[in-house]
């Protein structure tokens, strides 16, 4: 975001429009609830209380925000290059698979350990195993989305469709592995891989319920922000995203940029998968498909592909997801309520996109400096 260089009006616009959109979405959602015969104000209150009301519920919100920050980067980074990638769910699943394979290899010496191996761990220090798991998640998720980028560059395959198809392929692969070659024979009701030993799992921060995945998410968002905004690499990526022909004429290696950015994007989502395995589930199974991938797309859109804003929006959306349980219990609403709300937010935010530079309050009295189109191009 080139906000510091532009004037306060466009700053106000960039802040007011997304928040205004969220507000309008809340109103529409309230009307939807009212049509369903619920009191919208009671629902707002329940969402607020169960998401941000006290420290305990805020911890639940932060727990859900951690994977969202990482999956949001999977859409936000390629978007700066002009690519619309929505393979977040697939990259998360692949990252989970990768982290499990690396974790099991480093702790037992085998993906399918014998009872003897389960008793006698290899005895590596926890930090090594955790780094290995993170590396596994990053590699698997990164390569998964890098494939999408390569297909885009070399074969002009539409990256949106291919990345979505690869979500389904990744999920099929996960199901195949946990029911076949990686299955723990003792997991009967819910086919899973062998569990990661407790000593190697990612712990919680101090005495909270929040695991260190949140720190990973925040660090990844900050690094991504500096990479895109304050390095020549990021500048090259943004240039190619703004005008690919100009970037080619300027001699930028567009193909290399595409594949590297896609790898980084996928590795973030893969890291989210690693966090789900190493901190939450403790093993790979169908539970790691929890919808964080699709919600991450929404986070990236609302944050207008800005990694720092994505961290904040992830906390907001994490709260809404966290309140889904309360809506189910107290108001007897289906779990899809959160999905409806996400859809409404998405639609309103997209509409607000068309308002940039069109609202009178945010217009300069006399045009000087950047024209409105350049302002939006710089902030997108």
């Amino acid at each position, binding site marked *: 975001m080139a906000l510091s260089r532009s004037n306060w009006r466009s700053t106000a616009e960039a802040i007011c429009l997304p928040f205004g959109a969220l507000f309008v979405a809340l109103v529409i959602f309230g009307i939807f609830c009212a049509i369903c015969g619920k009191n919208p104000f009671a629902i707002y209150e329940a969402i607020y209380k169960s998401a941000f009301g006290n420290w305990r519920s805020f911890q639940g919100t932060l727990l859900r925000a951690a994977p969202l920050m990482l999956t949001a980067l999977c859409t936000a980074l390629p978007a700066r290059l002009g690519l619309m990638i929505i393979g977040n769910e697939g990259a998360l699943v692949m990252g989970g698979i990768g982290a499990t394979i690396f974790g099991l290899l480093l702790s037992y010496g085998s993906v399918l350990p014998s009872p003897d191996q389960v008793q006698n761990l290899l005895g590596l220090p926890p930090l090594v195993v955790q780094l290995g798991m993170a590396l596994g998640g990053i590699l698997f998720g990164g390569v998964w989305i890098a494939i999408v980028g390569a297909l885009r560059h070399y*074969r*002009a395959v539409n990256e949106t469709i*291919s990345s979505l198809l690869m979500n*389904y392929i990744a999920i*099929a692969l996960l199901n195949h592995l946990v029911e076949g070659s990686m299955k723990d024979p003792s997991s009967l009701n819910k086919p899973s891989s062998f569990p990661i030993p407790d000593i190697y799992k990612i712990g919680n921060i101090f005495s909270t319920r929040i695991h260190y995945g949140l720190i990973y998410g925040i660090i990844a968002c900050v690094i991504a922000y500096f990479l895109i905004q304050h390095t020549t690499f990021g500048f090259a990526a943004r240039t190619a995203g703004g005008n690919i022909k100009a970037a080619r004429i300027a001699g930028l290696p567009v193909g290399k940029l595409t594949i590297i950015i896609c790898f980084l994007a996928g590795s973030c989502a893969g890291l989210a998968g690693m966090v789900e395995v190493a901190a939450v589930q403790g093993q790979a199974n169908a539970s790691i498909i929890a919808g964080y991938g699709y919600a991450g797309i929404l986070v990236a859109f609302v944050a207008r592909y800005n990694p720092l804003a994505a961290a904040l929006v992830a906390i907001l959306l994490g709260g809404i997801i966290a309140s889904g349980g309360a809506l189910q219990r107290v108001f007897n609403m289906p779990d899809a309520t959160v999905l409806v709300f996400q859809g409404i937010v998405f639609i309103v935010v997209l509409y607000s996109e068309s308002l940039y530079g069109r609202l009178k309050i945010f217009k300069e009295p006399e045009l000087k400096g950047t024209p409105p189109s350049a302002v939006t191009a710089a902030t997108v």
Partner: protein
Amino acid sequence: MATEALGAWGVVLGIFAGTLRGSAPFLFVSLGECLTEKSGKINLGLEGTLLTGAMSAYAVSYLLQDKVGAAVSPWIGVLVAGIAGMGLGFIHAWLSQQPKVNDIAVGIAMIIFGSGIAFFLGKPFIQPKAPPLPTIDLGNWSSIPAVQSALKISPLFLLGVAIAPLMFWFFKSTRWGLFIRAVGDSPDAALAMGMSVSKVRMLCIVAGSFLAGIGGACLSLYYPGLWSESISSGQGLMAVALVIFARWNPIQCLWASLFFGGAQAVGPALQSVGIEQGRYLFNAAPYVLTLLIMIITCSPKKTLSGAPGALGTISG
């Protein structure tokens, strides 16, 4: 040897039957998407439309079975599915024609919104059994039950087969077909001819969503003939890739739909004869196939032949 040969024939018959059953939703969604893309807009949200259509058809068929009878209520369900699809199509058409709004992003939003609405309203209908659509039995000449059940064809499938050449003729030989192609190929030229680009696109997207909604009704009222949250699992999306594969030609959409329906039937057909190994991988066959087809047919050097000129450009 003899039983093995029969087993192999069982797989072939299973794939054949699955093709006839499973291609109907692909056919409707791809025809809807073809109509939409001919006008120069992409509707990725047909996945959500498909789910909403499936849910509303099933719900209406179930709720009305006591009032109008189990013979009529599924047909009303089909109609309501189409109308529900039109509702979502209207939102897509309006939003995707705002300035600076990317229609792919709108599609993603509509997938989330459409599936959210479908799961929200469809929650009470997961358990009960709604009356399905009647089938036309073409297999009575055979004494083998498997052949008989394979040839139970849905009238909706036949309707879709009829719409494909009709749409081809519509694009090629009618005044309105020309309007749509003009809007899709060059909106500026269409505007100069005095057409309203936004109205033509609105009509095309809404009509395409109507077809996609009916595609959803095929899923919930014919095959597999139930409502669940995983009923579509990406078929609406595959249809978008299918239209590219079919080069925006409605008749080729028909062949492509049969092909995809067949690919989808491979996994269940193998399972039915007891081959369980790698069933998840076989079930992923349609996705892999779609991806492979896109890799083969797309090219970075030239635009695809038959692609509408203004496809995917942002309006305003």
